[in-house]
């Protein structure tokens, strides 16, 4: 082990900083993004818009004196140009041009340069193709997203600590709820696939990089610009007719026609979520290809670590389901900006259709026009993505839990193929349940029985995963590290989340509980207590490999217990008020719910404080933590068999895999002690 670590130090030679390395970088990308935004905005606002309204001659049907607010159109094109400027600025399009102009293909040396060879810290601020750099970039960005989303959650709990809506105006509260929801969804979608799918999975399968390194860097660039645009949401108030004002007040589901009528914040929100969706689709294509085509010799599908299976299942869902939501968001934008009728039944007043190309008539002044849109279309498009999406978030956590339980129970995984069946069963079934979100919408009530049955069936493959987890723990020699604690808390929290989900899939119960706090508490048990705590455990588990430093054990334990006590009390209390009938998405509530809400808010603060402590632990340990050896956990998967820090191309020679990843408990070979208490790695 020692020889391996020493060998790694010499592979990373770093040189001093040169200003030329900033061209291109995220700095030039940011500059061109700003330029692009203003160019797009004023092109429409000052040039195209007034030209379209120039008079009845060019725009038949438009009466003199008609006004049409081009601001949202300008805003939309501002963001589109902003994204374009960003991609040009970071140099993402360079190789598209060298390819189409028939220039020389990049050789290995150039590929290595693009991967940040000898670049030092600046490679983290560039369009860098090394999957490990992209993984770290994702880790930092996702942590920031979670931090901002968490801050928004605390604002929600502050508003709800007492009845009476005293902290924020109610419109602002609605915007906070919407932003919290969507930001957390985007963060949790990326939190496993981004940092660990990129950094760990290629090494786990014995590959030197992802299948498409440039596409990989591009998918991170998409998420970064998506977040920059997301930050506009609370600040755009374009004085809409009807006084809708700024922000977005729809909640994360963005149902039409509410989305057509809410504040202008929906424009940056929709653009941002579309870009994040493209990012996750590109990442999914890349990951699936990597696992299909780049496994090391001998790494058969039945020797893949469970975490890889979790990531693959998540990537499949991402590739197949995201399009549905993208279509929904495009329709929202078209409804608002170009006055199409996807979700609006009719439009009135002087709402004017503006067509992008040509000089078609613009009818509609002064009268109500039937358009024929349907709100159910929005619900179906949203939930066809929305339900697979919750499994998209949770499946990598399933994989991670099954990955670490054998490591810390020091025995083989109980039922490897059963675990795969569980993960893949959830993946397939998740496409057949979306309409259980529409039990009270009035849409096709005759199908409610079918969707109730499919939803309840999902507990079968989920149960298989629990079986594997419990079976692995059974009579294991448990090593209670922080990652192990998080894995165990996943089992507990997800069990509550899963069981409350069975209640909600039941039609009579759902009709009572729909739109209430019970639902909010249910999905937080799966997302926070399940997936997010899994992420925290995964950070702790892979931090030694990713940064070369161990995280502090004591701080980790304190944060773990604070998080779990805070989380469980807060959300069990929320389940209780939900059963009592408190609706969700409201800034004020009946005083009868006051005590439970007070308890929820106080323990939510404890949860937040513990998460702050956890992030503090990450930062402090990253800077000055104890140096990690190559395999501190004595694990058997490939990422732990290579030196820390990981060399640029991971493996000097591609390994040949000869056995499964969880063969613990074999006879101990002399000299293979990992230094862990009571733990030795079998040879």
């Amino acid at each position, binding site marked *: 082990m020692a020889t391996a670590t020493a060998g790694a130090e010499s592979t990373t030679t770093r040189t001093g900083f040169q200003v030329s390395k900033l061209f291109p970088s995220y700095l030039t990308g940011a500059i061109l993004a700003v330029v692009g935004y203003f160019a797009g905005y004023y092109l429409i606002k000052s040039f195209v818009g007034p030209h379209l309204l120039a008079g009845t001659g060019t725009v038949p049907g438009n009466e003199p004196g008609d006004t049409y607010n081009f601001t949202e159109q300008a805003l939309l094109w501002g963001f589109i140009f902003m994204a374009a400027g960003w991609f040009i600025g970071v140099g993402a399009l360079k190789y598209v041009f060298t390819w189409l102009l028939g220039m020389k293909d990049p050789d290995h040396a150039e590929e290595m340069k693009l991967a940040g060879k000898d670049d030092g810290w600046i490679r983290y601020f560039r369009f860098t193709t090394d999957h490990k750099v992209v993984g770290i970039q994702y880790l930092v960005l996702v942590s920031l997203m979670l931090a901002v989303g968490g801050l928004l959650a605390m604002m929600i709990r502050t508003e709800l600590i007492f009845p009476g809506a005293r902290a924020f105006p109610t419109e602002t509260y609605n915007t906070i709820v919407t932003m919290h929801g969507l930001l957390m969804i985007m963060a949790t979608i990326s939190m496993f696939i981004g940092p660990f799918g990129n950094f760990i999975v290629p090494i786990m399968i014995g590959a030197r990089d992802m299948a498409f390194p440039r596409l990989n860097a591009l998918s991170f660039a998409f998420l970064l610009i998506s977040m920059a645009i997301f930050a506009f949401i609370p600040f755009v108030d374009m004085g809409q007719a009807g006084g809708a004002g700024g922000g977005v007040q729809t909640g994360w589901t963005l149902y039409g026609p509410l989305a057509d009528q809410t504040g202008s914040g929906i424009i940056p929100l929709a653009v941002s979520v579309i870009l994040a969706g493209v990012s996750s689709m590109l990442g999914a294509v890349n990951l699936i290809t990597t696992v299909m085509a780049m496994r090391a010799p001998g790494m058969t599908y039945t020797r893949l670590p469970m975490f890889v299976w979790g990531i693959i299942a998540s990537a499949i869902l991402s590739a197949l389901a995201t399009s549905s939501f993208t279509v929904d968001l495009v329709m929202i934008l078209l409804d608002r900006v170009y006055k199409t009728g996807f979700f609006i039944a009719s439009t009135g007043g002087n709402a004017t259709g503006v067509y992008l190309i040509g000089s078609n008539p613009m009818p509609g002044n002064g009268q109500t026009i*039937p358009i*024929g849109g349907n709100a159910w279309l929005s619900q179906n498009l949203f939930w066809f993505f929305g339900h697979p999406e919750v499994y998209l978030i949770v499946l990598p956590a399933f994989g991670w839990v099954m990955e670490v339980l054998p490591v810390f129970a020091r025995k083989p995984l109980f039922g490897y193929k059963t675990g795969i069946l569980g993960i893949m069963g959830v993946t397939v079934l998740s496409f057949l349940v979306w309409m259980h979100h529409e039990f009270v919408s009035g849409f096709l009530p005759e199908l409610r029985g079918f969707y109730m049955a499919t939803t309840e069936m999902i507990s079968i493959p989920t149960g298989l995963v629990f079986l594997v987890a419990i079976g692995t723990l059974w009579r294991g020699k448990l090593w209670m590290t922080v990652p192990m604690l998080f894995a165990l808390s996943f089992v507990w929290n997800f069990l509550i989340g899963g069981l409350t989900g069975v209640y909600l899939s039941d039609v009579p119960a759902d009709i009572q509980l729909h739109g209430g706090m019970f639902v909010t508490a249910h999905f937080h048990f799966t997302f926070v207590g399940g997936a997010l705590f899994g992420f925290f455990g995964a950070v702790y588990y892979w931090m030694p490999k990713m940064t070369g430093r161990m995280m502090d054990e004591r701080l980790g334990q304190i944060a773990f217990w604070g998080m779990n006590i805070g989380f469980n009390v807060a959300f069990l209390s929320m389940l209780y008020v939900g059963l009592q009938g408190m609706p969700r998405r409201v800034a004020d509530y009946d005083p009868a719910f006051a005590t439970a809400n007070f308890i929820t808010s106080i323990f939510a603060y404890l949860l937040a404080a513990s998460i702050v402590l956890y992030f503090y632990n990450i930062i402090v340990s990253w800077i000055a933590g104890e140096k990690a050896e190559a395999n501190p956990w004595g694990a058997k998967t490939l990422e732990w068999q290579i030196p820390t820090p990981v060399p640029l191309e991971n493996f000097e020679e591609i390994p*040949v895999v000869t056995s499964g990843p969880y063969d613990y408990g074999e006879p101990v070979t002399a000299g293979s002690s990992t230094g862990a208490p009571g733990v030795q790695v079998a040879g």
Partner: protein
Amino acid sequence: MDASLEHGHAEAGASHVSHVDDDQKVRIGMFLYVVTDILFALFLLISYLFLRANNTQGAWFPAGVPTLGGVQGIALLEAILLVVSGIAFIVAHVGVRGDNQTLTRIGVVIAALGWLVALIVQFYFAGHLPFVTTNGAFASIYITLTGYHLYHLLFAAPMMIGLTVRSLQGRYTAARHLGITTVGYFWYWAVILGIIIWLLPIVLPPQL
């Protein structure tokens, strides 16, 4: 390899410079991309069916809105251009597999010319639609679908230019023709969508 590998579930093997089939990798990646693209179009087509069946106030195709009429002829022309381009692309593929440089070049150039004319025709089509976005649910979804087709044609621009330049340079041989194979995945799908857009108002007319 070094000692560390012996402790894991792997063993040091013979030196593999690259164990990855690069062609297979790109084929899988492009196939998956086209799958996501097809799904996007599929959801638009499902929305067409959904709104046709579930529109409010009978406003799927409100009275007084002009029918497609002559524009449908432009859609047919577009579909024919795309089919010609697609067939030329198949010819290029056959040519490159048989290492016939002349046939490859002729195929690619005709395919690219077909794409260029189709792009211009699609702009003309968009500018001459008889209705606008406010003219009911049919107009909304039809304009969006044709807009998506236009996006395909714009997205194909770097691919078509690149293939033309590179095939004229003679860079595609029987041994290496990944560019033609994988761009083909995308282009055949774009051709199929062009045909679907022409057929849609005939098979499922806007008038209920």
